[in-house]
């Protein structure tokens, strides 16, 4: 991967260069020079600071404040824990969490493991590599609406392609998006089809960085194919795998677009109501922004928990 080349760290300094120069000049120039260079530096920073301030830092604070407020007819009042209580007592609070976890687990089983094995497979093939890679990546380039609405069409239980294929193969057909049992898995399949290209390419790059000698050594030990995958491939790509795992958990816990487009959000019997869809529903359907923010706070806590757990585990395993 040519693009990964990073200039060497400056730790090895070239002899003969006046390396102490920057420090030296600063000593001579004194305070006013320091002030000037700081002003200059902040001139470079100001655009980003303003954007972060308005669109990231301030909303973070506001998210917290809004969770404890309610606005009626333009008048905002503090309501303490009322919003948190309201969302907690929503009959579908736990349903939404269960669905979100379900989506995450399915997405891990399908969307995490499949790309990894596809990458291993592609890495072994000596032919048609470029073609296969392009194929896998093709859906990533579709606008999400095209991929999703296409799958919605395929999933139709009556005239959809999928049931037709199953029927032709004499397999039982499915209600796909129109049954609470299969709606979520159908969403995950569509989502995986559209996004697995990125993960596959990342794993491929990681696989190519595994030193060949390790496999040769394993061969000498008489290791079989699966033993080599287990003892060489997985440990060697552990960093990438675990990072991708975290990123994917955090991303899938925020699922909105696919369920919104495929099942209208709630899906059959609320079987695809995710936490983020519920946030959206509170804000834009129930017109209750405070409770929406409160639900966001719950989500934040859970995701922070995941990240904390991850960093703890990865520290322990080092």
């Amino acid at each position, binding site marked *: 991967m040519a693009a990964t080349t990073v200039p060497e760290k400056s730790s090895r300094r070239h002899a003969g260069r006046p390396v102490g120069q920057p420090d030296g*000049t600063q000593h001579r120039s004194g305070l006013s020079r320091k002030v000037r260079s700081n002003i200059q530096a902040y001139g470079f920073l100001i655009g980003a600071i303003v954007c972060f301030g308005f669109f990231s830092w301030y909303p973070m604070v506001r998210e917290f404040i809004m969770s404890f407020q309610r606005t009626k007819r333009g008048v905002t009042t503090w309501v303490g824990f009322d919003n948190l209580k309201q969302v907690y007592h929503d009959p579908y609070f736990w349903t939404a969490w269960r669905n979100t976890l379900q989506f995450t687990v399915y997405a891990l089983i399908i969307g995490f493991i499949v790309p990894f094995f596809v990458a291993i497979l592609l890495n072994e093939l*000596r032919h048609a590599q470029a073609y296969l890679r392009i194929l896998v990546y093709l859906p990533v380039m579709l606008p999400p*609406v095209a991929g999703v609405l296409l799958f919605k069409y395929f999933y139709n239980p*009556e005239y959809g392609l999928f049931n037709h294929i199953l029927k032709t193969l004499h397999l039982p057909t499915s209600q796909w998006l129109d049954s609470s049992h299969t709606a979520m898995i159908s969403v995950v399949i569509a989502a995986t089809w559209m996004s697995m290209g990125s993960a596959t390419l990342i794993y491929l790059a990681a696989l190519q960085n595994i030193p060949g000698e390790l*496999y040769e050594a394993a061969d000498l030990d008489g290791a079989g194919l699966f033993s080599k995958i287990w003892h060489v*491939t997985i440990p060697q790509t552990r960093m990438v795998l675990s990072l991708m795992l975290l990123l994917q958990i955090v991303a899938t816990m925020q699922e*909105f677009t696919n369920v919104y487009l495929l099942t209208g959000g709630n899906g059959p019997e609320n079987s695809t109501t995710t936490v983020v869809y519920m946030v959206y529903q509170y804000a834009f359907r129930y017109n209750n922004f405070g409770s929406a*923010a409160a639900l966001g706070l719950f*989500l934040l806590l859970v995701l922070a928990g995941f990240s904390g757990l991850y960093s703890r585990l990865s520290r322990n395993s080092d």
Partner: protein
Amino acid sequence: MAAFTQQNRTLISSATLSRPRAKFVYWTVLTLVVAVFTLVFLGPLYWMVTGGFKSAQEVLANPPTLFPKHPKASNYSDAWSELKIARLLFNTFYYAFGALLFQLVFDVAAAYAISKLRPVLGNLILGMMLATLMIPAAVLIVPQYMTVLDIPLLHVNLIGTPWAIWLPTVANGFNIFLLKRFFDSIPEDLMAAAKIDGAGPLRTLWSIVLPMSRPILGVVSIFAVVNVWKDFLWPMLVEPDPKNQPINIGINSLSQGVPQNVLIAALAISAVPTLLIFLLFQRNIMSGLTAGSLKG
């Protein structure tokens, strides 16, 4: 066919593959993989393109037909004019490249300042920027939306303007992280040399740092464009006027008003520009993407 080209040693060695039985297995697997992948990844696209040529009855027919019986190109022209796809595509590119421009200018400048100019409190600012990575975007949707309605201090409402899409993309901690780390690896000697030559910070950035940073700028650019391209919830909220909507929102909101065959034709048209861009630049895009995510 005889020789398996020497490449990086992988799970199975080339020598093993050269054995006759292994060769047979290899070619069987290869054929299968190519066939299955073509079916799985190109099949739906084929169905989309041909579906766009089918009549309203045929597209809903059971069993479905593999080829359109009487191909109707008029679906495509109907989709183009009725869904105003040209306008939607233009909007999408306008938002994507605007976002790209703002991210490149502001985030590069900021990362450069933190990495090389090192102002007071620079590390604190960096820390606060990276802390935003810990907050999932979806959590902030509601307060961010309230903010865009009425920007504090300035009291302007950005809803319906492209700024509502462009500016929030600048607040991307991941960009800052990638760029700052890359800039850190540029030798101080070079900076010092430039300073001796009398170059100011802007000049140094322009003529020394940026030319060296092409790979990372490529990565940031791809992410910037792809993120806008893929985004759904945010543009749906901040661009309520159908005239200003990007393609994802526009097609979805009009999908109820058109017959299925015209809708599928619209989906096919909407997929063309990026697929073309991808096929033309696939080498750069794929290497850029893997590089960015692997090192990130």
